[in-house]
């Protein structure tokens, strides 16, 4: 074969070409043939989408999951915040006594179960004042309260005087003001229910002047208290040293429905029911079984002895969980209260 058309064709070139064709006859192996042919027959469009479907989730899924998580968290946070804000709006309840504001010193019943902000906010509107409504922070900052507090001092004094005049179960009432005046300091908002934030919100001067007056009265003992105090040595033993000023030793809140000045201090029943309903429906609240909430509501105004009785009764009925929940709430409300041996054993 000539190199170029212009070059003369040499006989050696033709022989070399023929010899080359004779010398080389290699062919690719069959397996290679079949592999290439098979690959050539593979539909291109069938492979491509499969790659895409496999590829997409590989990197998109984590992003989608993360985005969903963030959105869910945001929505939940928003909802919780909104619900909290909604709870601060007071129920539209008229003041019990024709618009007269109940004094702040009036011992309010402690919050039903939780001590969260929304809880307190739910309790506070019992004053029946529209300006109390929006938020706790606003309440704390409001100076006009001072006047109201001062206004309420005489009433509180009178009430305390009445109670101290006739201590029914022999408890020394003088001790009670000491630890209830300590209540904001030692227990803070925890056990003083709706009172605590108000007490903190007062400016120093009026607060000092009103603090003894705002002292909550000792729990008004009932007839059952006597029987319980006999059964339980703890409270009776505690009653006598209560005379000495040991405030933190027995920081007992005052859940005394009887001692609370009668009609004007009691919140309207509708408001109470509404507040409880809202509290139960609040998503941010700790989940309390409905029956336990009912029990707590039932015992809300009862003295500790009644609580103990109820807990014992629940245990007898083999409703252990309810009893435990009630016990926890009891401990929270009455931290200094001693428990009967049976309850203590179970508690340990």
């Amino acid at each position: 074969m000539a190199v170029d058309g212009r070059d003369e064709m040499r006989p050696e070139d033709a022989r070399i070409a023929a010899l080359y064709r004779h010398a080389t006859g290699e062919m690719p192996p069959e397996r290679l043939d079949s592999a290439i042919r098979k690959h050539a027959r593979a539909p291109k469009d069938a492979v491509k989408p499969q790659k895409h479907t496999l590829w997409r989730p590989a990197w998109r899924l984590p992003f989608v999951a993360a985005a969903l998580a963030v959105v869910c968290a945001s929505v939940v946070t928003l909802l919780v915040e909104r619900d909290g804000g909604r709870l601060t709006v007071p129920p539209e309840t008229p003041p019990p006594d024709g618009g007269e504001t109940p004094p702040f010193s009036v011992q309010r019943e402690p919050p039903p179960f939780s001590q969260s902000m929304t809880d307190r906010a739910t309790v506070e509107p019992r004053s029946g004042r529209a300006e109390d409504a929006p938020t706790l922070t606003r309440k704390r900052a409001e100076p006009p309260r001072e006047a109201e507090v001062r206004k309420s001092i005489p009433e509180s004094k009178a009430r305390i005087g009445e109670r101290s005049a006739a201590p029914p179960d022999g408890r020394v009432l003088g001790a009670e003001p000491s630890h209830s005046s300590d209540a904001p300091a030692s227990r803070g908002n925890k056990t003083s229910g709706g009172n605590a934030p108000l007490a903190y919100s007062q400016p120093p001067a009026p607060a000092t002047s009103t603090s003894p007056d705002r002292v909550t009265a000792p729990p008004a003992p009932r007839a059952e208290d006597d029987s319980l105090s006999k059964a339980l040595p703890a409270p009776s033993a505690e009653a006598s040293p209560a005379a000495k000023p040991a405030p933190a030793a027995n920081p007992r809140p005052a859940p005394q429905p009887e001692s609370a000045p009668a009609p004007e201090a009691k919140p309207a029943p509708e408001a109470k029911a509404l507040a409880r309903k809202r509290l139960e429906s609040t998503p941010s609240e700790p989940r309390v079984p409905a029956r336990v909430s009912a029990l707590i509501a039932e015992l809300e105004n009862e003295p500790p002895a009644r609580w103990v009785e109820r807990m014992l009764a629940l245990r007898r009925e083999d409703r252990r969980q309810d009893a435990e929940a009630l016990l926890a709430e009891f401990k929270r409300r009455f931290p200094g209260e001693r428990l009967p041996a049976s309850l203590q054993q179970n508690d340990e």
Partner: protein
Amino acid sequence: MLAYGEGDVAAFDELYRRHKGPLYRFLLRQCRDGAIAEELFQDIWTNVIRARRNYAVAARFTTYLYHLAHNRLIDHYRRRAPAALVSYDDEEASTSIEEIAGSAHERPEAAYEARQKAARLLELLQALPTAQREAFVLQHEAGMSIEDIAVVTGVTRETAKSRLRYAMAKLREGMQGWL
């Protein structure tokens, strides 16, 4: 190739049947290793299959195919160990004609003259510089003209022609007395 790009698998079969032997031998001559030649062969055909949709007629399919093969070979040479690098330079003929001719005299007489001649030719071919051997194989396996060889190897026509002339001269000289 256009027909295959539109889904005609039979067209590919025809292309493959026509070019598989020459291409395989071309690779075998160039890399001198059967396994490597098979690997390169498969790679090249895979590239052809992959490029079926985007194939544009710019030259003959043979030119296109051997251009792929040439590039693949260059990659292969680059990946090899530096000591085993093959020079693509025309001036660096690793083996002189005299050496090849001398070795022919040292070979014992073979029973089959044709096989001896073929072996001799292949031996001479392997002794050629890569570029000259490539030009020779492209011409004799793929039936390419000098222009096609120039296109495939990416050189000017004159360079391709020169490479081919040198290759033929060395082979003629080495095969003197054998033909």
